[in-house]
């Protein structure tokens, strides 16, 4: 399999959010606005790439029995770096994302990639895999948050699109997030069945 494919598979074919249905907690919680979605996506991508690289580097030294705790420590280190950077450079975003930044540690996508991919593949492949998954996650977040921000506040990135559109507040609320992801998953299933 070519190196390019390692990257592109995370975008659509194995999209972590819509196909693998992993890491939903941050996806739903922070997708109120596109800005938040992008911020969360970048933070998660950073953690994914970093942890994939390190895990791939040390994969031959870690004893099999305690590999999961080792991965968690590696991931938590990168999450802490991301958390501190965010606090330093973008306090507003940090406040908006709240407890969901430290919770990247327990995001199943990150641990899942370390366990399923990075511990079996070399550096370059793991890097591309991490990048692809991260970008795929960011794309999904942007899609969901764009839908929610448009419907719930009538805006995209703070710009009003249609004059006179009455925002549907519910999409800015938790139940709206659940509704959007449920309907999107249903829609994708429907399209998949059509093609098959």
């Amino acid at each position, binding site marked *: 399999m070519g190196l390019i494919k390692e990257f592109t598979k995370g975008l659509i074919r194995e999209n972590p959010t819509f196909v693998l249905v992993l890491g939903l907690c941050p996806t739903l919680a922070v997708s109120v606005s596109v800005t938040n979605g992008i911020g969360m996506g970048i933070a998660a991508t950073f953690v994914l790439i970093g942890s994939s690289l390190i895990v791939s580097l040390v994969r031959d030294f870690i004893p099999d029995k305690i590999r999961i705790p080792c991965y968690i420590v590696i991931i938590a280190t990168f999450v802490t770096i991301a958390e501190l950077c965010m606090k330093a450079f973008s306090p507003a975003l940090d406040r908006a994302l709240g407890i969901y930044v430290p919770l990247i540690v327990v995001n199943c996508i990150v641990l899942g990639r370390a366990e399923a991919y990075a511990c079996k593949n070399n550096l370059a492949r793991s890097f591309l895999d991490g990048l692809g998954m991260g970008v795929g996650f960011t794309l999904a977040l942007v899609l969901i948050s764009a839908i929610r921000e448009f419907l719930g506040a009538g805006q995209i990135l703070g710009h009003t699109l249609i004059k006179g559109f*009455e925002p549907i*507040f519910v999409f800015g609320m938790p139940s709206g997030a659940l509704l959007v992801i449920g309907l999107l998953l249903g829609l994708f299933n429907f399209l998949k069945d059509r093609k098959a």
Partner: protein
Amino acid sequence: MKNNLLVSGSPHIHKPESIARIMWTVVLSLVPAGIAGVIIFGLSALWVTLLAVLAAVSTEFVFGLLTKKKITILDGSAVITGILLAFNLPSNVPLWLPVVGAVFSIAIGKQVFGGLGQNIFNPALVGRVFLMASWPKYMTTFVKPFSIDAVTSATPLAALKEGKIIEHLSYLDLFLGKHGGCIGEVCILALLIGAAILLIKGYISWHIPVTYIFTTALFTYIFGAKTLFAGDWLFHILSGGLILGAFFMATDYVATPLTAQGQLIFGVGCGLLTAIIRLWGGYPEGVAYAILMMNGATPFIDRYTKNRIYGTK
């Protein structure tokens, strides 16, 4: 439905009862409340109701085409959903509001679960809480009854919540519906006429409505005032959507428990939740939320109130 499932040998007498017949009777039983709503709030109440019904039926039709199932618009169930949704709206909402609400009710509240007989939640209430969360400003401004230039006024419950003194409202006014509120909930007299039809026909049983209303009354009587046992329970029965909810929405065949015992639990649960939300919650009215929550608990109630099979332990 009464519990008259007796098994006996043939020949059986055939009864012309069918889903469509029951559903259209329910529609008929809702007509008095609708007429009262139009008399009290004017023609706009009629347009809201008609649009909601039309939107509900069309959505049902489109989903029938999409899923290639039998088209079920003639059985009247979508009509009921449309009417009940409209009855839960103020009469002065913009006309697109009932349409959006009805589409949501049928699509998300009913068809996603598989259509008639499969919905977990009451579709009309799903639509109502969706509208409530989405456009609260339209859902909470009410028109004063019999006013030509649409003066707004608060519902008795909202006034109570804000701590205002309720201006000269007698129990008779509340009973006849001479106060602000949703289209179908204000006239208790008309609602009781409709409820009587359903009870006499045996289409609904007394268990849920009676326990529901009684529990709410008891709870508001005990905790409804500064001192215990001094609450105005009659006011709580006659105002808000309690009567409409108890007789017409908490008695949905599909989304409520099957056995009498389960229905009693359901009624008490609805009553408690309604009273708690009214007395201490952020919203003035809790009927819709209470019934939806109990709808969610219904599969669970059913599981623990199964009838014992004769001869088993």
